[in-house]
């Protein structure tokens, strides 16, 4: 993502006369244009062309405001969980040797490969009313599925590898020298983690968090299954679900919400690209 924005190294630039280079550039531009810029441009046009009053009405309705709030809550909690798990798992995978370490690494990547809908269904099977944990939890008055906790679980599941995959290469690259040096200087595990490990992985961590945030805000499939897509009283629809409903019901206001999501995501990606650039410069 941000890597594609970075300028090529001088040594990687081929002479201009190469026909292959022109062909490559055409393919690249066509890809970005047809698949990214044109669709996003049309959505922006559809969002803004009905005028500001319509735009305001679409994003300030009770349904939209509740959806925004739910999206923010779920994304915030999921990023928090994903970051905690991601860093803990990263340290476990790079700093400890144990049986099944490689398998754990593969499993941690699984959410990238599994369809979000499948992930959502799996969570329903486990935490649903008739699921393994769902029944006892329900009896204790805690509902997971068709409620915010389930939506957070589903979103955390799909975004977990983002932080993990950012911090693992950095943890591997820095090695254990600095951590060992901190140990012999008198720092226990906790101090070593906060004073040495965290500052060292901070750029990668921030980048992973921003990517995860963008992913969480835009999550649809897993949340659609787990939330039950309830509108009206007890709404569990996040922004993406409201957009889908408005499009399917031919209701107005879908593009305006989509536009808000695009702006949020692009802003997040710009922040991430900026962090990466600063990191490369230093």
């Amino acid at each position, binding site marked *: 993502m941000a890597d594609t924005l970075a300028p090529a190294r001088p040594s990687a630039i081929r002479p201009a006369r190469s026909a292959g280079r022109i062909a490559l550039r055409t393919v690249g531009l066509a890809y970005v244009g047809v698949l990214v810029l044109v669709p996003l441009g049309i959505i922006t046009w559809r969002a803004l062309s009905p005028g500001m009053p319509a735009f305001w009405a679409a994003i300030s309705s009770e349904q939209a405001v509740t959806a925004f709030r739910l999206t923010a809550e779920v994304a915030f909690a999921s990023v928090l969980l994903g970051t905690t798990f991601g860093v803990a798992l990263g340290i476990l995978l790079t700093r400890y040797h144990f049986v099944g370490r490689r398998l754990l690494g593969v499993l941690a990547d699984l959410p990238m490969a599994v369809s979000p809908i499948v992930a959502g269904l799996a969570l329903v099977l486990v935490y649903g009313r008739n699921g393994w944990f769902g029944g006892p939890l329900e009896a204790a008055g805690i509902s997971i599925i068709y409620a915010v906790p389930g939506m957070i679980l589903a979103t955390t599941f799909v975004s977990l590898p983002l932080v993990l995959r950012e911090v693992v290469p950095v943890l591997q690259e820095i090695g254990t*020298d*600095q951590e*060992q*040096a901190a140990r*012999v*200087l*008198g720092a226990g595990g906790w101090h070593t983690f906060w*004073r040495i490990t965290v500052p060292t992985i901070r750029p990668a961590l921030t980048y992973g968090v921003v990517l995860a945030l963008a992913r969480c805000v835009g999550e649809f499939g897993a949340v659609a299954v787990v939330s039950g897509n309830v509108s009206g009283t007890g709404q569990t629809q996040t922004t993406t679900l409201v957009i889908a409903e408005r499009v399917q019901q031919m209701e107005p206001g879908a593009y305006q919400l989509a536009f808000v999501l695009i702006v949020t995501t692009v802003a997040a990606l710009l922040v991430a690209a900026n962090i990466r650039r600063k990191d490369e410069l230093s």
Partner: protein
Amino acid sequence: MSIQANGVTKRFGAFVALDDVDLDVHAGALTALLGPSGGGKSTLLRVIGGLETPDAGEVSIAGRDMTRVPAHERNVGFVFQHYAAFQHLSVFRNVAFGLEIRRRPKAEVRRRVNELLELVHLEELADRKPAQLSGGQRQRMALARALAAEPSVLLLDEPFGALDTKVRRELRGWLRALHDEVHVTTVFVTHDQEEALEVADEIVVVNNGKVEQVGSPSDLYDKPANDFVMEFMGPVTRLGGRLVRPHDVQVTAAHVDGAVPGRVARLQRIGFEVRADVTTADGDLWVQLTRGQADTLELTPGSDVWLRAVV
């Protein structure tokens, strides 16, 4: 403070890094752990520092059993081959780290860090990041950092291994001078026998996970316990089936008691030194002479000589 290791054994899978090793370093000494790569000397140092846990045996520092004490409670100074500088902290904060962890008052930290930066000649570079320092400067910073909290012992793992020859030689002399000033019990690991001979009061030769010999530099050079130590401590050649130093072979024109005959095959003049390759009935060897000796004997390729080991 003294350091004792008794029967220390450490395995990595099937590989035995340390095999029932005993070590006794007396307080205030500057000791070298010398040996070939993979011989176990770094592992022994890391066991003393608490960075590795031995499978068997005990380690004590200043008479206190440290075997089960975690690294961060041992109060040792440790210097790593690749500096292990805290990249995100300035030189000042690197050196201050151990004091900050111990929650020493700010004024004391500042005074102590400045004192140490002066000692290692880095006072001008206190605000730099480690990435802006040369290798030698980084290692001096690492030394100041290790000494800041007044450790009971200072452990250095191939401290000059990553530096170029000139800086290395400079830092060796400097480590010796520092030790004479600070008097902290110091153990350093090296695979360079010249470094060990030049810097250390006492040398422990470690090979194949075992201690081969312990002694002063001249003991080890002159009275090696076995052929391995002999070969490791300096150049050797073989005369009459026995290892000798090339400068311990007496060359004469006439027969003397116990001498064997030989013929000079080749002469090499290297500055003040002359190397003679000599063929005997027992095999080939090389002999180190001064230019004066070679001239007096009027050695040329083809000269017949008599050879005798003088020690």
